[in-house]
């Protein structure tokens, strides 16, 4: 009697073939799917399209177990380290400073991109000039009130006019899930440089790698020129 068709083997090999074909065809499938989803999401009152892969929009990443909430009353941003005039600012004081609004794409190092996202806030260079950076300073370390995350920039990078302490995002106050009440925004770099829940700016004499950078991510995270990626630059 025949042992029957080897369907198990065919299924395994067929799936492997489909998987390989999927990897190869992904760029074409993705672009077709993106345009379909873009049309569908505009007419989708249920929001289900937001759960499908690659549906655009932001994804929530936090490395901490839980993040305390800060209100305009108890939020403080400190500036210290190698500066002449250390300071601690309330949200109201930050809001009273000159604001810059930038509209750029947001590019995550894991691949997702959100086009034309508005950020508005105080240029980091303004806070640094208020504090008076000493000549021995070389870099900035950023700390966050989630208690875990940290980031870094060289002094030269921190002086760019597209690096902000953002108070508003998409023309609304930065929400808690997006890192509010204030977050860093480093427009030309991958989004992990734009630390959420920013609470400390410390001027240092050398670069101290941040959270993901200790885990192997590039310290100089220019979009399209780091982390082995070739995305279109965001600036």
């Amino acid at each position, binding site marked *: 009697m025949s042992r*029957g068709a*080897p*369907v198990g*083997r065919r299924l395994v090999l067929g799936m492997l073939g489909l*998987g390989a074909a999927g*990897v190869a*065809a992904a760029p074409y499938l993705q672009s077709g799917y993106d345009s379909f989803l873009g049309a569908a999401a505009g007419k989708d009152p249920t929001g289900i399209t937001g759960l499908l*892969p690659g549906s655009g929009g932001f994804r929530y990443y*936090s490395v901490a177990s839980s993040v305390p909430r800060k209100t305009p009353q108890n939020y403080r941003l400190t500036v210290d380290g190698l500066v002449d005039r250390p300071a601690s600012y309330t949200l109201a004081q930050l809001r009273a400073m000159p604001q810059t609004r930038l509209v750029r794409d947001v590019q995550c190092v*894991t691949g997702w991109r959100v086009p034309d996202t508005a950020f508005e806030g105080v240029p980091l260079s303004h806070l640094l000039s208020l504090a008076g950076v000493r000549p021995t300073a070389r870099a900035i370390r950023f700390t966050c009130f989630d208690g875990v995350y940290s980031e870094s920039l060289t002094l030269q990078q921190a002086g760019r006019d597209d690096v902000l302490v953002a108070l508003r995002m998409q023309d609304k106050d930065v929400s808690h899930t997006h890192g509010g009440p204030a977050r860093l925004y480093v427009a030309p770099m991958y989004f992990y440089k734009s630390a959420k829940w920013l609470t400390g700016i410390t001027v240092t004499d050398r670069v101290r790698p941040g959270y993901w950078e200790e885990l192997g991510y590039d310290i100089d995270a220019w979009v399209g020129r780091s982390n082995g990626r070739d995305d279109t630059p965001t600036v």
Partner: protein
Amino acid sequence: MTSTPGSAGPTDATTPPPSERPSRGAQWSPTPRPAPVRRFSPAERLVHRTTAILMLTCLATAGCLYLPSLAELVGRRHLVVTVHIWTGLLLPVPYLLGLASRAFRADLALLGRLTPVDRAWLRAVRRRRPARPSGKFNAGQKLFAGWIAGATLVMLGTGLLMWLTHLTPLTWRTGATFVHDWLSLAMGTVIAGHLWMAATHPEARRAMRTGFSRPR
């Protein structure tokens, strides 16, 4: 199909209705109750259980990485990623260790081949006929086993491409992410179906839990 120990009845048989309670004064039936049939060896059940734990952990961590509401609830992204990667890498290990068991290999041989009986089963399902012939495993169980094995290997391969970022060019990694995302949705759906079948077939569950089933 050669006769193997434990091939007495289909795995997905529904629980038979309880036999009628003997009415007062009824005679005790002299028919002896058939002995339970061994369906799965302890090694096979261990393979199934460890694979199930690894697969469910992998799916749960995937949900925490992927669904915004779960991600906000759980946080701890680095820990969740580490658990997801290692449960994924360990997923084939129970299967590979199980190959040392003769009973496991025998059942794999049964699962891998679709016999004329299985084609009759598939026809009966398509035509919604209640009589569905099968050996130890029915055609649905065989198709599930082959598909999930292939899908797991694809997830393992694409997962490795996403994890070992320096190995391959970026377009491979983007493609791997695309396949990994979509196939995870398909696997979640199929495994939910597997759990649904288990929930509605207590006899199959008992066989996997105790190793024995009661012949009808």
